[in-house]
């Protein structure tokens, strides 16, 4: 099935003019998002003349969004600060894609707000069944204490990390 994907961070063309134009008008739902992707051969096969031998091999261009973003309206990007998750190959400066529509389960790497700060941690079920946010950096274990969900005044699981992008 062909999925049309737009970057979650694509600035929407949402000038107020658009709202006004739509006001009082019930249009079809599911407005098709604009795809940035182009096939390798853009022109249709000519009706007359010698058909391009490449026409049967038209492939789509690769789009990183396809790898990173499954559900655009629910996907956000965050930037990593610190070394707490290096054993999970999450490094300082990485950009993580976070999908809020995925139900967080133990074992997922999640973004969570915990007492007012946003953390990236492994959601884990520890002995006794307690849920906790656990850092993964064996070398600096003492620097990153376990954050127990039942000990927080306010803790919200913000979303599930689905990927990471690093630029050199």
């Amino acid at each position, binding site marked *: 099935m062909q999925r049309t994907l737009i970057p979650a961070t694509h600035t929407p063309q949402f000038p107020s003019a658009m709202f*006004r*134009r739509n006001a009082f008008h019930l249009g079809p739902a599911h407005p098709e998002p604009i795809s940035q992707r182009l096939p390798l051969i853009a022109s249709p096969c000519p009706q007359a003349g010698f058909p391009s031998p490449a026409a049967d091999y038209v492939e789509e261009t690769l789009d990183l969004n396809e790898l990173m973003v499954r559900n655009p309206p629910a996907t956000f990007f965050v930037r990593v600060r610190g070394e707490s998750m290096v054993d999970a190959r999450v490094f300082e400066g990485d950009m993580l894609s976070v999908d809020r*529509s995925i139900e967080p389960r133990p074992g997922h790497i999640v973004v969570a707000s915990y007492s007012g700060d946003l953390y990236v941690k492994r959601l884990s079920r520890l002995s006794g069944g307690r849920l906790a946010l656990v850092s993964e950096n064996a070398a600096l274990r003492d620097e990153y204490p376990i954050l127990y969900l039942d000990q927080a005044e306010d803790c919200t699981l913000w979303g599930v990390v689905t990927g990471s992008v690093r630029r050199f």
Partner: protein
Amino acid sequence: MDTTTPSSVNTASLATGARPRLQTRFALVDVNNFYCSCEAVFDPRLVGKPLVVLSNNDGCVVARSAEAKALGIKMGQPWHLVPREFKAQGLKALSSNYTLYADMSHRVMTILGGMAPRQEVYSIDECFLDFSGMGLITTSLRDHGLLIRNRIQQWTGLTVCVGIGSTKTRAKLANHIAKKNPQWAGSFDLESLSIDEQQQWLSSLDVGEVWGVGGRLTEQLKAMGINTVQDLKEANPKRIRGQFSVVLERTVEELNGISCLVLEELSPKKQQILSSRSFGRHVTSEADLREAVLTYLARAAEKLRAQGSIAGMLQVGIRTNPFKPDVPQYNKAISCKLAEATDDTLVLGQYAIRMLKQLYREGYIYQKASIMLTDLSPRTERQITLFEDTAGREKRERLNAALDTVNRRYGSRTLQTAGAGIHKSWSMKRGNLSAAYTTDWRSLPTVQ
């Protein structure tokens, strides 16, 4: 009245081949405390705190969190008049971050679009959904409303309320009830109640809560003894039409479940386009004023092209701050009929500069400039002049189109005329602006 369950479809009429009449059902979905909630999604420290978002220039309160409302902060209240003790109690104020709100709105609307057959985006944080016919596949429309609420909550972190009714006006009232009465958990279907229960709810609501009934109208209605929504519902439509307007007559019909506001197609195009702003700091020089005027003009011309119109008349105005009576006051606007109706930013700009020259007086502290385009007509009906330079005109059209495309894609004012200024020292004060968390790679929220 209540026919939302599949079992209540009249099977006898199906057997005889007569089509059962499809019930109309609308839902109004809106985001609670939209601007403040958007901010709190990315800054959890704001959750549960009194927070306000300020208007352009950080002047007035344009949005309040539930906690700020509880403190008694009023909508539109000038920030400098908010008592200091509130600020000491932790009341926070942010500049309006429309880039963020537009992105979050887009997400909400996209999700809502997938949850109903038809959708009308009504404003940045409100949306009508057409649920007509969905009663045949869903046992309870209220449950579908709860599903919508949960999904928006999980996917975006924002909370919505859903009101369901047989007309848009009733859906809007149902939304109000959902919002004010926590027992419905944010989703309320007016049509699922018995007639008696409906009457009770509608009698408990002030007539001013009805969609489109403003302050003055409310007073007039009350003078006639129409105090509650139920009173208006029971009013004689013909009498209402005679004493008020067709619009209010329709509202009465809508309250009685006769849907009048579906068939309204596209809203009419704007008959005038206004672009005006207050300056972030005081402006005295003509050069600064010129930059501001050309910037607002570019915005107005862009709107003009977006709706496919051309303008025959241009008005430029400048004024000092009328709330500072101790300084010399100046307030003047002039209009100019254009030689030829146009939508060209450059042509309009030339007029604007000349007009500003006439307007400008030295020795005043200016606070605001405005641009108004009037005498609008469709672009397709443009009069062709005798000595027209067709090639030159087409070139100009392409230039303006390129201007719009670039500014749409890369953000407004990416491309502009040099006269509109680069540093814009006069531009808005936005002293406490949050980051463009969702639209700028350099401003992503950080996680540790």
